[in-house]
């Protein structure tokens, strides 16, 4: 392994036991995150994007959830095997998160100052006055006007975009090595989305933070991510550098996804391409390629066995029988 890998996810499996059966929400996900890299995870709802990231920081509610296998190595230490107090040291400190809805992830009863100071005091051992100063400095970096005044306000006094700025300021206040952003702009308007993405790019590159960006929007990924993982039904079906994947998508699902988004910058065809059918139900999924019922290039082997991963240049990997040798 190269030196600058800070997070290594190896064959991660997270299952949920529900009344209807076993839901393999994440089923054998592996990827590496390098220092300063922005990694995108795209997929549709239910594909396991968020569960992957909750598993990384060991926040899966158990029961019904259970991390059934795999390793998450952060500086060669397995986060999944750590005790609660050990991981609490890392969460919010070395690895922090931003969630989709800034209203529900901020405590409505507490002033912004209290919420920010708590984190800083806990992880950095500063006293309250110094922590407050630090918090104000972070809010200023995040582009909040008059932070000295705003810091004593409550979350409802901020607009959606401003709340997301507060979240960013809060999550970066301990200079984390990794920032996990789960659909950070999905609840925001396009003009505000552009502001927030720009801010995230600027701050994380200033602090040298690596980012895992979870999103369903291919447009957001194209503009922000260096590398990309495409998830479908709990697995990564294709990963590689963002430019490579958009220039030449290999997995039929990635191809379909890219083709089915209407584009602003060119005239669209009379009819959009669309992938037929519905995303699969992941309960008790058999060992087949989960995409085969919707795939127009499906073969006999696809309904029998999950494809092995085929590798290409620049760290590209594709899980599809079109590129892997069929077993005898």
């Amino acid at each position: 392994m190269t030196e600058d890998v800070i997070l290594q996810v190896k064959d991660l499996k997270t299952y949920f036991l529900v009344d209807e059966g076993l839901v393999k929400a994440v089923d054998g996900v592996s990827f590496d995150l390098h220092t300063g890299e922005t990694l995108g995870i795209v997929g549709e709802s239910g594909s396991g994007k968020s569960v992957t990231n909750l598993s990384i920081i060991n926040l899966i509610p158990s029961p019904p959830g259970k991390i059934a296998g795999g390793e998450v190595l952060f500086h060669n230490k397995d986060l999944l095997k750590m005790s609660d107090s050990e991981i609490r040291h890392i969460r919010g400190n070395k690895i922090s998160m931003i969630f989709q809805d800034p209203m529900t992830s901020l405590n409505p009863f507490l002033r912004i100052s209290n919420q920010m100071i708590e984190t800083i005091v806990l992880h950095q051992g500063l006293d309250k006055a110094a922590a407050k100063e630090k918090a104000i400095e972070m809010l200023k970096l995040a582009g909040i006007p008059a932070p000295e005044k705003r810091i004593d306000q409550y979350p409802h006094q901020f607009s959606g975009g401003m709340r997301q700025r507060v979240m960013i300021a809060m999550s970066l206040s301990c200079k984390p090595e990794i920032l996990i952003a789960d659909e950070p702009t999905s609840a925001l308007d396009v003009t505000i989305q552009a502001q927030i993405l720009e801010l995230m790019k600027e701050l994380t590159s200033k602090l040298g933070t690596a980012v895992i960006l979870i999103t369903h929007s291919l447009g957001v990924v194209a503009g922000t991510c260096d590398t990309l993982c495409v998830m479908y039904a709990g697995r990564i079906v294709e990963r590689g550098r963002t430019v490579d994947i958009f220039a030449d998508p290999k997995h039929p699902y990635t191809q379909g996804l890219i083709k089915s988004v209407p584009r602003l910058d060119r005239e669209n065809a009379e009819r959009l391409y669309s992938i037929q059918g519905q995303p699969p139900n992941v309960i008790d999924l058999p060992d087949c390629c989960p995409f085969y019922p919707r795939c127009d290039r499906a073969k006999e082997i696809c309904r029998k066995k999950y494809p092995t991963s085929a590798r290409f240049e620049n760290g590209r990997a594709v899980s599809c029988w079109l590129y892997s040798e069929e077993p005898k």
Partner: protein
Amino acid sequence: MSEKETLLDVRGLKMHFPIRSSAFSRKKNFIYAVDGVDFQIRKGETLGLVGESGCGKSTTARAIAQLYKPTAGEVILNGKNLVDMKPIDLLAARKNMQMVFQDPYASLNPRMTSGDIIAEPMHIFLQRGLLGLSKQEMDDRVEKLMERVGLSRFFRNRYPHEFSGGQRQRIGIARALALQPQLMLCDEPVSALDVSIQSQILNLFKDLQDEFGLTYLFIAHDLAVIQYISDRVAVMYLGLIVEISGAKDLYKKPLHPYTQALLSAAPIPDPKVEAVRKRIILTGDVPSPDKQRPGCYFYDRCSKRMDVCKAKRPQLTTMSEGHQVACFLYGKPE
């Protein structure tokens, strides 16, 4: 397009909602959700309505459908003004105008089967003697509609929770089609759907339009979706239309600074294009529509603002055939 007749004519539509500033205050305040909107939709065309949250897109659609009683203005469908109609006449007129809603979870009654949901509009019109269909004919129509929108007719006894989001949206579309309307008001019908399902539903809207000659008012916040589906596009900001034009013209040559910013903020799913793109990043948020301003509503966020913009509000002026913009950059007042 221009020779086609006008189906819907919206004139000076205003929708103000009263709010109280405090529990003891006697002064009445308003949210000026829609503050004087004019546009026409011709038969068989799609008018896209685009803007950020809170700009009054949905309120416009609801005020057209008379789900809200407009504060002022006229909504003329087929030459008749809906605003001051008697309830029974309004019901009859609504047969020609149906809505598709954003949230496929909230817009279907969870205790009705999909077949009943689709048949409900027909039942309502049947009971009031506005529709002459036998039970058999209604059943046939429900099954035909289900097949047409891509659902098996064997699903007619299933309940909404047994369907996925995309399938539910298909039920909502079938319900809207049940009365064979001329105009469909589609309020963000694809925003809650996944990418692969979104393109299926967009194609369905296009196919239905070709087949039944439907006219759409199509609301979305996604500019690429609007470009794909619309013949003409209206851009709204704070309850006003700031630019309205043919879709091609608008995307090639956006005139209003807000339209330009909106287009430049929308991400394009291509890293090579994104890498070299220059963005106009707007500062600040959309202001609250709780007061009427004398000047241009976009003044606070505009990069090209002038003194005149603060004092006077620009009106929509025609720049070229079918392209109107409300901005002083294109003609100052005397």
